[in-house]
């Protein structure tokens, strides 16, 4: 039977709509599953003014057979098998025929009982109770109150349509009684619409200039863009995020193609597209990668017969471009180097000082990274870029369009004729903005990006700014993801703990927390972020735990370790090897370190193991050092037969203390070598109880 729900609200932000759709779907699925209502289909739809759930559910619960138990059989029946007074009383109290009684076996013993049919509850009744619960459980990143009620929601709500099987459900939410009526587009067709099912609802709304399906609106936008641009043989510059937001921001999309004076094409592309996108939500128009003096906007309207919407948007854009050109011309009058003096007046963070302070730190971190990464040839350019990379925060352009930070500095550096390495490093140093964003393409850009992010993270953690739950005011997670992504994408090999030491030393006594405490917190934080990144890449949680077990030294090694484990996990040697490693760990548990002395060996098998270990070690260690864990792991497998024989023939816990200590020492050196690849004890193998996965936030 068909279910349709529409909650009408004042314009909801796109991010809230996305989250509400997920919550609604999960909420209704759970409510219905909990009471065993069959859900044949369930989907959500939305516009900025409506959250919609449409589904096909069973009419009610299945009738069920229910078992009612009475007194124990020994009490209910006499030795002759006839009912006792207690047995008769049970039948009487339930008003059933004694003939229906039967013996029921339970874990506690045999009882007298009977089966009866229980009538299922109707879905309409279930929905009446579930609807206010699901709607009331919706949460949003920022909630508000209105009028005189303490109720909080994303934006004020105005109406509730809720029908099941064509009839309104007897329910209400926050004073809104469910009906089978809705309204059309605010401006184009605001009248009431009656709708008892999805088909009439959708058709009625469409007539009233509301396209209820966001995917359909997106298709309309794409089709209209294609049609508008066909005569120009041009394309809209792809911006999936903007397209997504716009399809959630309108009830009836209307693509507007507008133009701006060609004179503004002298502005850099970055500036043009930002001026269009920010505030006005416009797409740029390009042909053969060249910007055309046109833009595309998406209006919430049926048509623009008089061209007023187009002309209005053109006028607004022209004013913005005029501003941008003014900034571009004025900013270029002062070279970055000269402007840099102003950085002392811009706060980076209250406890961490100004951007001048940050710049000085960046220069040192960049120098250190260049040394460590063997990038001597770009060191002086990279350090110069570090000195200038934050200067664009002082330009009018970045004050107006903050999204251009970094890129603007790079463009101004280019205009000044600074070295290409310097320009590019400045341009790229905020990249990657997210795990989906590209890492810097140049080495100097990558180094500056790492330095900038490490400075922010170490500083913020050292200043005691904690990340918790959804609160991450300093963007520490994004920055840490950036560090990991740059290291992984560009395969940069540097010791992460040593880099932390260096950054901490550069901060000196500016930080609130002690160095050791800050370092430990940073390592912990990064381990969590790496776990998150690897989980996103789809690796098994226990393999991730194993790869993180040796600690984070080289960031690239953490990925290499988990890749090696993942690649070998289905090899027949893997499982016995893991069990062997665990056996060693169990033997060594809580024992103090012991030394191996080859002269103390008694048995042939322990000598064999010792020499195998030496050979394997000398082969594997260079591989481990360069991060080739797959091959190192392959060699480790060769320990297995020798270890098997060892355990068969040699008693580790020998009576003689010296012999025993020596054997434990031998096992400890094996454990140590294994731990340089992974912490195998974390890996779950068949037949073991699965450990609870540790999930990163």
């Amino acid at each position, binding site marked *: 039977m068909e279910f349709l729900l529409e909650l009408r609200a004042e314009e909801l932000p796109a991010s809230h709509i996305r989250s509400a759709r997920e919550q609604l779907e999960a909420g209704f699925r759970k409510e219905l599953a909990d009471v065993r209502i069959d859900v044949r289909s369930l989907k959500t739809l939305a516009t900025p003014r409506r959250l919609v759930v449409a589904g096909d559910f069973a009419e009610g619960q299945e009738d069920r057979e229910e078992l009612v138990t009475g007194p124990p059989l020994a009490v209910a029946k006499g030795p002759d098998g006839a009912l006792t007074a207690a047995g008769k009383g049970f039948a009487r109290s339930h008003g059933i025929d004694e003939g229906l009684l039967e013996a029921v076996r339970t874990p506690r013993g045999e009882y007298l009982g009977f089966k009866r049919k229980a009538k299922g509850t109707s879905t309409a009744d279930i929905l009446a109770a579930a609807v206010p619960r699901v709607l009331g459980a919706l949460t949003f990143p920022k909630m508000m109150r209105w*009028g005189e009620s303490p109720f909080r929601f994303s934006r004020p709500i105005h109406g509730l349509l809720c029908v099941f099987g064509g009839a309104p459900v007897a329910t209400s939410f926050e004073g809104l009684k469910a009906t089978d009526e809705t309204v059309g587009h605010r401006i184009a067709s605001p009248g009431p619409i009656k709708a008892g099912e999805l088909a009439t609802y959708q058709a009625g709304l469409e007539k009233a200039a509301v396209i209820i399906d966001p995917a359909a609106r997106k298709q309309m936008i794409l089709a209209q863009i294609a049609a508008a641009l066909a005569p120009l043989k041009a394309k809209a510059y792809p911006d999936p995020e903007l397209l997504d937001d716009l399809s959630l921001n309108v009830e009836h999309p209307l693509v507007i193609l507008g133009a701006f004076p060609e004179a503004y094409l002298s502005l850099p592309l970055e500036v043009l597209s930002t001026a269009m996108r920010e505030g006005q939500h416009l797409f740029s128009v390009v042909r053969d990668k060249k910007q055309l003096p046109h833009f595309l906007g998406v*209006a919430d309207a049926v048509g623009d017969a008089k061209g007023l919407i187009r002309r209005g948007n053109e006028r607004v*854009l022209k004013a913005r471009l005029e501003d941008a050109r003014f900034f571009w011309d004025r900013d270029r009058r002062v070279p970055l180097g000269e402007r840099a003096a102003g950085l002392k007046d811009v*706060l980076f963070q209250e406890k961490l000082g100004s951007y001048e302070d940050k710049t000085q730190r960046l220069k040192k971190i960049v120098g250190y990274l260049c040394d460590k990464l063997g990038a001597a040839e770009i060191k002086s350019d990279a350090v110069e870029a570090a000195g200038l990379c934050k200067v664009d925060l002082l330009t009018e352009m970045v004050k107006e369009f903050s999204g251009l930070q970094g890129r603007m500095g790079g463009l101004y550096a280019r205009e000044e004729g600074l070295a290409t390495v310097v320009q590019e490093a400045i341009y790229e140093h905020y990249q990657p903005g997210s795990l989906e964003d590209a890492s810097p393409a140049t080495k100097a850009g990558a180094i500056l990006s790492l330095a900038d992010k490490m400075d922010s993270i170490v500083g913020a953690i050292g200043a005691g700014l904690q990340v918790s739950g959804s609160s991450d005011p300093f963007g520490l997670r994004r920055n840490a993801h950036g560090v990991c992504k740059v290291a992984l994408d560009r395969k940069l090999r540097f010791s992460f703990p040593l880099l932390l030491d260096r950054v901490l030393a550069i901060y000196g006594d500016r930080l609130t927390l002690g160095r050791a405490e800050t370092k430990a917190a940073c390592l912990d934080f990064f381990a969590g972020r790496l776990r998150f990144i690897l989980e996103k890449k789809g690796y098994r949680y226990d393999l991730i735990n194993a790869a993180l077990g040796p600690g984070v030294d080289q960031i690239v090694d953490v990925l290499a370790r988990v890749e090696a484990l993942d690649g070998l996990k289905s090899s027949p040697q893997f499982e016995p090897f893991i069990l062997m490693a665990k056996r060693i760990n169990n033997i060594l548990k809580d024992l103090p370190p012991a030394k191996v002395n080859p002269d103390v060996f008694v048995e042939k098998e322990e000598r064999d193991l010792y020499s195998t270990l030496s050979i394997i070690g000398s082969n594997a260690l260079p591989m481990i050092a360069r991060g080739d864990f797959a091959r190192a792991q392959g060699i480790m497998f060769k320990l297995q037969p020798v270890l098997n024989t060892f355990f068969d023939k040699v008693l580790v816990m020998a009576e003689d203390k010296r012999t025993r200590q020596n054997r434990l020492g031998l096992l400890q050196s094996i454990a140590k070598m294994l731990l340089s690849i992974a912490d195998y004890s974390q890996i779950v193998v068949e037949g073991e109880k699965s450990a609870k996965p540790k999930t990163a936030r």
Partner: protein
Amino acid sequence: MSVQDLILGLHRYWAGQGCYLAQTYDVEVGAGTMTPDTFFRVLDKRNWRVGYVQPSRRPDDGRYGENPNRVQKHFQYQVIMKPSPAGIQDIYVQSLRSLGIALEDHDLRFDEDNWESPTIGAWGVGWQVLLDGLEITQFTYFQQCGGIDLSPVPVEITYGLERLEMFLEQKDDIYDLDWSADVSYRDLRLREEKEFSAYNFTAASVTMLRQAFNACHKEAGRLVAKDLLLPAYDMCLKCSHNFNLLDSRGAISVTERIKMISLIRALVNEIARRYTGGKEGV
């Protein structure tokens, strides 16, 4: 339609919605929100409806009269309705129709935009209203003011009068607007913009402004202690304006900025707390 007609139209419309028409407040403010007709009246439980024109001074936006869109003083039409009526969006949309805007020919959008003013400890949730891409109104459900949770919740509707007028007259330059049939915006305002830009950016005495800030701050504290809350609040407004001038003079350092804003906010929060009888905000 001239600016003057626009003001008359809004006055008539909002008076029809039960708003009392207040007169412009006579202390410099950065936004209509800061005047006592909004600040104090949103704090208590009583119903309140008001509409008024308020000049908004933002010294840093001065452009010596050379920018067609930016001025260091512009005019806002401020409406407060408490509690926010259920149909307030429709009431607002109707106000645009009452000005003769045929919305069927345009694109009217409520675009997510949450507002906050750290100086007076206020924030709210709402939208900027865009008409064919032009921001004409800030539409906010006030949640907190002076650090106090507001209940009932007021709605604040702030029209940018010049923006709206540029739309109505279809003009690209603010100075080309007609204030009345005979007086242009240029006649009224150009000289003021030039001279005040020079004052805001170069001529204002930093020493005098600092002294004034400190004197007003001290006076506000003294007045709060005597429970003279309205005069104390005026002093806070003067602090805020002096701060803005110091800022446009480039005289405020990094750490100072935060300190000065928090000095004002602490006083404003205390005034709000005392005004509502000691009820603490969250």
